[in-house]
């Protein structure tokens, strides 16, 4: 394993005011961020938001319109792709069809003039569990195996940063889950910085130490997956990373640490430090699983100080682990409510008038 684990100090990757325009279309719009050395960083965003373009600029396959890219304190913006301490796992894998697996994996080492590549290649094939396939051609491998070759081919060069562009996108769901665990294991083992691009929020959350949510060429929010999930700062993040119920309202006053908000004729509370809106107009948000659904007759069970909405159940779907309700509020908005299936029986049914409540500390405020 010593042939793989990097012994030198790897350094942070820094993007500073990175911009890429195609004609007058801004694909990447002024991105500044630091990716700590050795972290598993996920870049999450919808298709077309500029993830691949960002990755290609880091790899040197696309020239930034402006901005700088640094590894540690070294500016690599002007370096050509083949001069950068960065390797890529391409979305399509881009394995060399005329070379066998061994030679595909050895490609980078040979280009750097390393004479005896066999021990390193064999160790790497061992790591990705493909040793018996060394002499096969890429076309003779399954999708999952090709994906692992692509990872091995990039990782063997011990890059400062490994870029992965939706590496699991072409795999079926089961294999994708398996490979997520595999990739995470490999990253922990080799300690290289991984920048993992994906549009799958679950994938980003389960794998990454840090997730950056990207929208229309900008980073909307960045942080530990749980922090971003629990306290989204924009409506886009709230909806893209998981689901959210958002109510538009305005701040009417303050009660201790809490803000009091008027929304749709109701009064709701949220902790002042969980509000990222700057004006008085805001969106009050809550995650579906933070809400509790009760039959109208159980109104007495609601803790005092809870935020509360009444409504009618319009849909019930039982998913095993949880039950998902759609509840229509008096003003027509449909709320998503998840309930853990801990109580047997006694579920609400379609048409039931219900009470939906949640604690103010689970509430967040967003700029509208």
């Amino acid at each position, binding site marked *: 394993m010593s042939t793989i684990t990097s012994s030198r100090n790897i350094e942070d990757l820094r993007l500073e005011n990175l911009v890429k325009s195609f004609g007058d279309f801004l694909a990447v719009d002024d991105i500044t961020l630091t990716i700590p050395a050795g972290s598993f960083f996920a870049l999450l965003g919808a298709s077309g938001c500029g993830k691949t373009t960002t990755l290609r600029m880091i790899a040197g396959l696309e020239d930034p319109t402006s901005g700088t890219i640094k590894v540690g304190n070294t500016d690599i913006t002007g370096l050509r792709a*083949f001069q950068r301490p960065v390797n890529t796992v*391409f979305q399509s894998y*881009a*394995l*060399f*069809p005329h070379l066998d697996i061994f030679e595909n994996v050895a490609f980078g080492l040979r280009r750097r003039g390393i004479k005896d590549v066999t021990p390193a290649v064999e160790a790497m094939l061992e790591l990705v569990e493909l040793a018996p396939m060394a002499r096969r051609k890429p076309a003779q491998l399954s999708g999952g195996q090709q994906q692992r070759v692509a990872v091995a081919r*990039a990782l063997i060069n011990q890059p400062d940063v490994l870029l992965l562009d939706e590496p699991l996108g072409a795999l079926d769901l089961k294999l994708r889950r398996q490979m997520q665990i595999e990739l995470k294991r490999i990253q922990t083992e080799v300690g290289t910085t991984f920048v993992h691009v994906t549009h799958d929020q679950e994938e980003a959350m389960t794998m990454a130490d840090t997730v950056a949510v990207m929208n229309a060429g900008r980073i909307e929010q960045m942080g530990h997956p749980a922090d971003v999930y629990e306290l989204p700062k924009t409506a886009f993040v709230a909806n893209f990373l998981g689901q959210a119920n958002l109510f538009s309202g305005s701040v009417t006053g303050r009660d201790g640490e809490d803000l009091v908000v008027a929304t749709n004729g109701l009064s709701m509370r949220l902790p002042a430090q969980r509000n990222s809106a700057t004006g008085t107009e805001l969106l009050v948000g809550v995650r579906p699983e933070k809400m509790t659904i009760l039959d109208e007759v159980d109104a007495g069970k609601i803790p005092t100080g809870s935020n509360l909405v009444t409504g009618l159940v319009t849909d019930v779907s039982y998913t095993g682990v949880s039950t998902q309700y759609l509840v229509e509020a008096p003003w027509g908005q449909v709320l998503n409510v998840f309930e853990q299936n801990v109580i047997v029986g006694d579920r609400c049914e379609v048409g039931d008038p219900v009470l939906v409540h949640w604690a103010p500390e689970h509430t967040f405020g967003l700029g509208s």
Partner: protein
Amino acid sequence: MVVGVAAKGGTSIAPGAQRRSRTGYFLLLPGMAWLGIFFAIPIATLFMTSLQAPVEGASGQYAPAFQVSNYADAIIEYWPQFLRSFLYAGIATLLALVIAYPLAYFIAVKAGRWRTLMLVLVIAPSFASFLLRTYAWRTILADESPVTTFLNALHVLPDDRILNTSIAVIAGLTYNFLPFMVLPLYAALERLDPRLIEASNDLYANPITTFRKVTWPLSLPGVVAGTLLTFIPAAGDYINAELLGSTQDRMIGNAIQTNFIDFRDYPIASALSFMLMAAILVLVFAYIRRAGTEDLV
């Protein structure tokens, strides 16, 4: 019970399968007939003619025989033309490859919306007759032409002229067979996935190494097809040597033509044709083995 069902299934399937495979052979018939009439029979006739002996006293008449010495006579008389054919065709093929590769690469990878127009331009000269175009080269390369005058001013021509030298013959061969090199190369390069080039760059290969290790090996099928399509007709060509070369530059095609048309020495002409075919066949097989691309061609 189970066995009975299986046997029944087996017998009921077999006749259908046989009928289908017989249909396949029927479909082959027109092609086989074509090959038989226009290839196998002429080859056999050619071979028999190459062994004929002259009829005593009647010049220009030959009778069936088994005169193997025709082959020896042909070789002794025409080995320089043989060598020259393969030399000229070889040089012309190499030149065509060197000229066509960047051209095909540009059309396939960089030309964008000009691609179709450029491909048409490559083929367009073929709309004019081969003979006519080669005549045109006589004017272009003539002693007082701008091209010759210019090159003479640079003192690069060994004989102070181009027309009626081997240079003109090789230039003519290169020019005439260039499209046969460009098109297969284009087809191979057009299929090349640009992401492989990026992957190679990403893996520390500079542009030159990327060409050697990725682009070139992946375009080999096109290279093999293009060189064969250029070399084979160039080796058998006689128009370029006839129109652009001197008597010192005659190729095997000229020898065959002269023997058939002028000398009416059919056995020698046939023997030459036969040896040309055999030589090309041997060269092609050796070449394909070397290139190691039997499965790619």
